[in-house]
Every structure is written in structure tokens, then in C-alpha cells.
């Protein structure tokens, strides 16, 4: 049985997540200790800032599920009430579905974010290093990665930005293509401007100018971005140099007038200019957006894009859920095939097919034989094949009643390439 136990941002408050995270972080050999618990055959431990989960293959006893829950609660120092209220437990098909949804970022705080897949891959890598996964979880994890990849490539769930700063960067790319070599002017030293500036720097802009009423504050921010600080009086010169302007001052009237933009536009030789006004009340005169080659977006425009993109992601999530369901079905079918009997049948069929094909090939040199000789050769071949198959088939039959049979069946299918 596959079981998944854990908690996430939907089921547990931050304090509980922190406690469990801190407790589990200290345990580097958690997967190994898990597999040492009686009844747990394979295990993987996933820990991110929004979720902590343990994925296992267990012997199917109810008692093992309790042990698993107690183990996680004890590792994180959770009280019995916290464990009861915050932990969720999924088995078999539900566990597979949950894992696939997590990897595909359908269960994330920001749906469609791409970080989670990397985190699941890291968790799997750690489990592999500790040798705590086997045939079943290995296959399950690879299927989860495949599902996530399909969701990314077949839906547009991760295409549109869903934060104001990312939306601004995406728009800047729509205007300038590459941001390499572009100059950014930040007016005001607000948190939002800083965040947007940070994203722009990460996208390769060449220089950043900070213009602020307080020169000292501007210098601090300029130092952080390796840019230069200027006073608001030098705004005209800074506007002449800049390609992107982000404004977020607390001023009660316009800092950048439409006339100023018209005046500097000639000095800028009509270069494209992207103005981002995230201040409330607004810093940039809306009329500035009407100037040729100037593109003005205020906080509401950016928020509209974010909302629109969020709705688009929700629509794409429906397609993603269908992909997840399809992959869950495929995986469950594979698990069902791990029963010994279908594997024995497949193995026999494969061997019989090989014998038949070889006899057809040998037809040319066997044509001189009479019927009796020919039958004797066939009996000899079948006898050798049956003797060779006897032991593997017996072991498969004996082990089919045992919990560990899945490993042997999976290995047999791999050895004889029965899934191809």
C-alpha cells in the first residue's frame, strides 16, 4: 500500500508548520529511520516552507499507518491534538493523486509556481542517496515528474505572471525584448519599487538610478543594487537616461508630469519608455501614457493583469487536473500488474513468442528433416525453456502471497523487459 501523510498551508497554521519543519530539519537520516519502522518498506521525506510530507510504501496494516503518524508527530514535537487536526493521510490512489498534484503545482499556495517540482526532485535525490526508495516509489516519483512536465508543457498554467512585480517585468520584456543593457530609474524608496527593481536586476538590466526626496535613503538602496542615487531635482536628467521608470513615492501630487515626459522625450531621441506607477495616489500624470512610444501602467493596470492571469491559471488548472487523473489511472494500472499471475502469463507469452519466431527462422535448415525429427527438436527446445523458467515462476508464485512480492515482480518485469 502507498501512504502519504503530512500537513500543508491549508491544514496547518504557520506556527505548527514551523515546529514540524524545525524538528524534521534536524533529522538528516529521516528516510532511513522511517524504513527502519516495522512495516514501512520505502520512504521519501518532502519538506518545503508550505508543506511537510512523508511518502511511503507500507505493508497495508492499519497499525503501520498509526506508527507513521506517531513518527511524524514525534519528529516535529506535535501535540496529539495538533497531529489530529493538522495532519492528513492519503492511501493508494488518493496518495498517488495527491503527489501528482503537488508535483504539478496544483496544490501550491501560488498555483502553477515552478519551484515545487525542484523541491520534490531534491527530496527524491536525498531518498535515493539514503537508499530508502525501491521499485514502487521510484516508478511513482518518475511518474510524478512526468505528470508535472506534461502539465507544464500541455497547459498554460505557469505562463502568466501572478504577482505585480513579475507582471511588470513581463511587460518590460514585451516592450524591450531583452532587458540586458537597459537603464532603470526608481523614484521613491518604497518596498514595492525595491521588489520590482530586484526582479529587473535579476533579468539583466545594466544600471539602476534611485531618485528620492531623502538622499540618504536613496544611497542605501542604490548601494544594495550597485546603482547610483540622485535627488528629485535631478529627475529630468535621470528620465533622459532611463528606459524603465518605477515610481512609488508617498507624494500627494504628480512627481512626473506629462509635459516633463514630452520635453525629455525629444532629448531621449524618441526611445521607448516604460513607466510603472505603483504609488497611491499616483506619481505619474496619466496623460504621460498618451505620449508616442511611452507605455504607462499604474497599480490597478498591473493588478488587473495579475487577476486576469490568476483566472487564466484556474481555467488551465482544469486541464491539468485531467492530465493528473490520466496519469493516476496509468500508474494504478501498472501497480495492479504487479500481481504475480499477470507477470507469469506475460513471461510465458514472451518466451513462447521467442521460441515461435526462432523456429520460423530455423525453417530453412530444418526443411531437410522429416516430421518426427522436427517434433523432437521442438520438444527439446520447449523442455529447455520450461526448465529455465521453472525457478523464476516458482519464486514468483511463492512470493505472491508475501508483502515483498511487488519488488520481485517489478524486478522480473524489468529483467525480461515485460513492459515494452
Amino acid at each position, binding site marked *: 500500500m502507498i501512504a502519504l501523510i503530512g500537513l500543508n498551508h491549508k491544514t496547518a497554521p504557520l506556527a505548527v508548520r514551523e515546529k514540524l519543519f524545525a524538528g524534521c530539519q534536524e533529522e538528516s537520516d529521516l528516510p532511513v529511520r522511517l524504513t527502519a519502522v516495522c512495516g514501512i518498506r520505502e520512504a521519501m521525506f518532502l519538506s518545503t516552507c508550505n508543506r511537510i510530507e512523508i511518502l511511503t510504501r507500507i505493508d497495508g496494516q492499519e497499525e503501520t499507518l498509526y506508527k507513521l503518524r506517531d513518527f511524524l508527530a514525534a519528529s516535529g514535537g506535535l501535540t496529539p491534538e495538533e497531529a489530529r487536526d493538522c495532519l492528513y493521510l492519503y492511501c493508494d490512489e488518493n496518495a498517488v493523486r495527491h503527489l501528482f498534484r503537488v508535483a504539478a503545482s496544483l496544490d501550491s499556495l501560488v498555483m502553477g509556481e515552478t519551484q515545487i517540482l525542484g523541491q520534490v526532485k531534491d527530496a527524491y535525490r536525498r531518498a535515493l542517496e539514503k537508499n530508502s526508495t525501491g521499485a514502487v516509489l521510484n516508478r511513482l516519483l518518475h511518474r510524478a515528474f512526468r505528470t508535472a512536465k506534461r502539465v507544464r508543457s500541455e497547459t498554460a498554467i505557469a*505562463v*502568466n505572471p501572478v504577482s505585480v512585480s513579475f507582471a511588470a517585468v513581463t*511587460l518590460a*520584456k*514585451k*516592450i*524591450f*525584448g531583452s532587458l540586458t543593457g537597459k537603464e532603470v530609474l526608481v523614484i521613491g524608496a518604497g518596498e514595492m519599487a525595491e521588489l520590482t527593481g530586484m526582479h529587473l536586476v535579476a533579468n539583466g538590466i545594466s544600471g539602476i538610478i534611485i531618485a528620492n526626496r531623502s538622499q540618504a535613503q536613496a544611497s542605501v538602496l542604490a548601494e544594495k543594487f550597485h546603482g547610483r542615487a540622485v535627488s528629485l531635482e535631478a529627475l529630468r536628467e535621470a528620465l533622459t537616461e532611463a528606459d524603465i521608470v518605477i515610481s512609488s513615492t508617498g507624494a500627494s501630487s504628480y512627481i512626473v508630469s506629462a509635459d516633463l515626459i514630452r520635453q525629455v522625450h525629444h532629448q531621449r*531621441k*524618441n*526611445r*521607448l519608455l516604460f513607466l510603472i506607477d505603483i504609488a497611491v495616489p499616483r506619481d505619474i500624470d496619466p496623460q504621460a*501614457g498618451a505620449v*508616442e*512610444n511611452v*507605455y504607462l*501602467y499604474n497599480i490597478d*493596470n498591473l493588478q*488587473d*493583469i495579475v487577476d*486576469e*492571469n490568476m483566472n487564466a491559471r484556474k481555467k488551465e488548472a482544469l486541464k491539468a487536473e485531467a492530465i493528473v487523473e490520466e496519469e493516476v489511472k496509468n500508474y494504478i494500472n501498472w501497480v495492479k500488474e504487479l500481481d504475480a499471475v499477470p507477470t507469469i502469463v506475460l513471461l510465458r507469452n514472451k518466451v513462447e513468442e521467442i521460441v515461435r519466431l526462432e523456429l520460423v527462422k530455423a525453417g530453412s535448415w530444418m526443411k531437410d528433416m522429416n516430421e518426427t525429427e522436427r517434433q523432437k527438436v521442438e520438444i527439446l527446445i520447449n523442455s529447455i525453456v520450461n526448465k529455465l523458467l521453472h525457478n523464476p515462476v516458482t519464486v514468483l508464485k511463492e512470493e505472491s502471497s508475501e508483502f515483498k512480492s511487488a519488488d520481485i515482480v517489478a524486478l522480473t518485469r524489468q529483467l525480461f523487459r515485460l513492459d515494452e
Partner: protein
Amino acid sequence: MEIILFKLAFAFCLLSTAGYLLSLLIKKVVPAKISTWILVIAFGFLTINLFLVMVNPAGYIKIGSREFFSFCAWVVAGVYLAFQMKTKTRILGSFISPIILLLMIAAAGRESGRSLVPEDMLGWLTLVHLVLVVAGEALFILASCAGAMFIIQNSLLKHKKSSHMSRLLPALHDLDRINHLGLLWGFPVLTLGLFAGIVFAGYTWESGWPGDPKVIWTSAAWAAYGFLLHQRLAIGWKGIRMAVISCAVFILLLLSYSGVRFCFSTLHDFV
């Protein structure tokens, strides 16, 4: 052999245009990428076709309307594909490939086989004139297509419309650069082509040619694009203004050329 190659090139052109238009319709870039490769194949067939025309056993170059228009299509496709290698703006093909297809349709039209250039006029100067004028105009077509895409993208960004179309179209700066490069290369190439034509006409036709409608309209095109290039380089016109005027000049010239072809008699009509 030439006719088979021409038909293959035509079929691939048709396929490529369908792919590019599909890309625009479903707003996905993958069909455009595939169409680019289909256009490369069409370009390959057309290249071999034109090569075979050049080295025909008769020993002279026969320029009929099929050869002329397929040569125009070849130049436009070549210029577009060369730009592709530099800019990777595949969606530009949605605008260029219908023009290439139209040229191929003209080449396949019922006038095909009609000799456009009398044999006594054939010489290296005519060939230089033809190659450079067509190449120059192909570059102007490219500049104007980039301009048309700029206008659409500009409108979407100004009106804050974050549509699929906006994502599909290249960035404004890239489109402006294509427009710039098209004009920058197109103008000197057309100038040289016209110069070769003038020298040729001076020797062969001696008089009457300066008043020929086709010469007048080509000179007007040259002057219009020269003006655009001047405004861009010397005055600093950029972006939407360049895009709008490029498109306007292109439409005007297209209408004028059609007018010349159907309403006036011209020395360039070699029936």
C-alpha cells in the same frame, strides 16, 4: 524537371503559409516554428529551380514571368529566413509568407512562360538591376510587415490588453529593429539597383525612359523610403511613427504598382 521543382516549392509555400496563419489563429508559436522549416524546404526547391534556369542548355537566361515572380518570391523568402537567423521572430512569417505565396501564385499564373525581358536586352547589367531592385523591395516589405506588427503590439500595450496575441507577437524593440534594418539595407540595395537600371536604359533605350510610369513610381518608392531612412537616422524617428509611415508607404506603393500595371503602358512591359 524545373516544373516539378516549381510545383514542389509552390506546395511547400502553401503549406508554410497555412502553418503560419494557423499559428496566428490558435495563438501558439509551435506551428510557426514548423512553418519556418517548411519555408526553408520551399526555398531550397526554388533555389535549385532557379539554378537550373540559369544553367539551361540553351546557353542564355530566359526570364519569363514564372522565373521573374519565383525569383521575387525566392528573394523575399531568403531575406526573411536570413532575418530569422538573427532575430528569431518566427511570427513575422505570418505576415511575410502570404506575400511569398502571392508571388508564387503570380509565377504560376496563366501568363507564365511569357518573356518579360527581350533577349537582346539580357546582359549582366539587367541581371544586376533586377536582382538588386527585387532584393531592395523585399527588404522594404520586411520593414513594413514589422511595422504592421508593431502597430498591433503597440495598440495592445497602450490599451492594457494582455491577450494571447500580445504574447505571440515579438517585443516592440525587436520589431522596431527589424524595421530599421529593413530600411537600412533596403535603401542602398534599391539605390544600386536603380542606378544599374538607369545606366542600362541610358545605353539601350536612349530616350523616353525617364517619363515611364514604372520608373516614376519606383523613383517615388525610392524617395519615400529614403525620406523614412533620413527621418530615422537624422531626426531620430522611432517606434510607432516609423511603423505607421512604413505601412502607409507600402500600401501606397502597392496600389501604385497595381495601377501602373493595369492602367498605363510602360517600357517595362515586354510582350
